[in-house]
């Protein structure tokens, strides 16, 4: 499979993942959204040297990936492009902050190294939590949840249409490159002389298709707002889940759980 069709099918795979069934999938989208926001806020707010405190936060994605039946591997695979970027953010810290913090035998660990690691952890954890949300919630119900939070419909509709539009554009690119390849055998990629017209065509074609698709939505009663997947009212279990998670995050953020536990055992 070439890169394009792969991109296309990965996009659809996310749809497929979100359409599966598990206790996590069944949670109310609004609860999931709120919990994810709380989680990210908690993770990001940890002080930069609080490595152990932050480490505890891995429990949430770890447990939920299990419960949702999504292998963590899938998450890292799908995020393989952004993860290195997120990790690169902290790379300069060891050079800027050289205060010794910890002595492990001969090795001195500086504050910079610790803050680099915590920064990476923050990035990775937040990405994992967001991925979990997207992989267990269809884009429609996510938008419905946003609407419940009174996010203006123009924004949610924009989000939805953009999401669909990416697919349309990828489809057009696939069709065009296939047509090109068939008439340019033995060529690797698209010759630079054709780039201009290729891009122009792509833009025109995907705009045309977007227009046609939009027309066909209008013809089927679309009036500026998706009806969205039916979002039933939130069940008590969802509220309990949200409160419990938010409480746990707060606890983990305020109480140094790792050292408390350590203290229990070491005495």
């Amino acid at each position, binding site marked *: 499979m070439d890169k394009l069709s792969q991109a296309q099918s990965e996009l659809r795979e996310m749809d497929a993942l979100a359409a599966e069934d598990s206790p996590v999938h069944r949670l109310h989208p609004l609860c999931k959204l709120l919990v994810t926001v709380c989680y990210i806020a908690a993770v990001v707010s940890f002080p930069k040297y609080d490595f152990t405190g932050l480490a505890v936060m891995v429990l949430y994605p770890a447990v939920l990936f299990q419960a949702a039946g999504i292998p963590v591997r899938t998450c890292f695979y799908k995020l393989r492009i952004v993860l290195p970027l997120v990790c690169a953010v902290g790379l300069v810290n060891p050079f800027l902050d050289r205060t010794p913090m910890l002595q492990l035998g001969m090795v001195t660990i500086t504050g910079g190294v610790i803050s680099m690691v915590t920064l990476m952890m923050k990035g990775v954890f937040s990405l994992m939590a967001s991925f979990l949300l997207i992989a267990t919630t269809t884009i429609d119900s996510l938008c419905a949840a946003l609407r419940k939070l009174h996010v203006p419909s123009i924004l949610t509709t924009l989000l939805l249409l953009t999401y669909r539009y990416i697919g349309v554009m990828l489809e057009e690119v696939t069709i065009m490159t296939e047509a090109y390849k068939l008439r340019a055998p033995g060529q690797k990629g698209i010759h630079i002389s054709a780039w201009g017209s290729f891009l122009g065509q792509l833009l025109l074609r995907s705009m045309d298709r977007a227009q046609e698709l939009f027309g066909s*939505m209008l013809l089927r*009663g679309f009036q500026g707002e998706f009806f969205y997947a039916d979002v039933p009212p939130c069940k008590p279990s969802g509220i309990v889940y949200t409160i419990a998670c938010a409480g746990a995050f707060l606890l983990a953020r305020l109480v140094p759980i790792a050292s408390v536990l350590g203290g229990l055992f070491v005495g």
Partner: protein
Amino acid sequence: MTMIEFRNVSFSYDSGNPVVADLSFSIGRGETVGLIGANGAGKSTIMKLLLGLVTGEGEITVDGLPMNRQNLPAIRQRIGFVLQDSDNQMFMPTVYEDMIFGPRNYGVSKEETDRRVDDVLKCLGLQELKHRYNHKISGGEKRMAAIATILAMEPEMILMDEPSTALDPVNRRTVINTVNRLPQTKLIASHDLDMILDTCQRVILLAGGAIVADGDAETILRDRELLEANRMELPFCLQGRR
């Protein structure tokens, strides 16, 4: 009672050449009319005019409602349109989601929508497609699914632009039988004259955006000279080949 009325309608795309020229005709409620003509004769354009997707000069009324901005939602609600290109028709991830899109937008309850979906799929023999992904079904399957999405809306009038292209003989026959069972007003544009003969009582023959002939389907479709003058042939079933 008239369902559709075109009075002196003219239209041209931005290139300036008139695509539809001073066109007048009307279609009665419950009629099934075939729209035939060479490539570029203006069949698809007439359908777009009827749905307010493009606007020209002259008067168009649908079910007594004159075509204008205020009436547009009401007009569109009455009409189901099967596009010439199914890729542009299906925009949700799965066939099922596409099928519920129309009814749910028009406020049909979830139970009723699901009942319609199952009925239509059964009628077209497509139960197996229900939860398939739109990008993972074949061209002909997509065509059938597109027809299904429109039937699930239960519109008062159905426009079909080339419904039989890409269909295998069995599916084509299913569509013909389904069309014949539907009580609604239907306007079918097609080059498949055999299908037109099987489904329509009346035929409108277009050339260059104007009506060349309008009348009984059998009479027009048996008129070899008329058809050949307009880049068409007798339907196969009337060619009497051995």
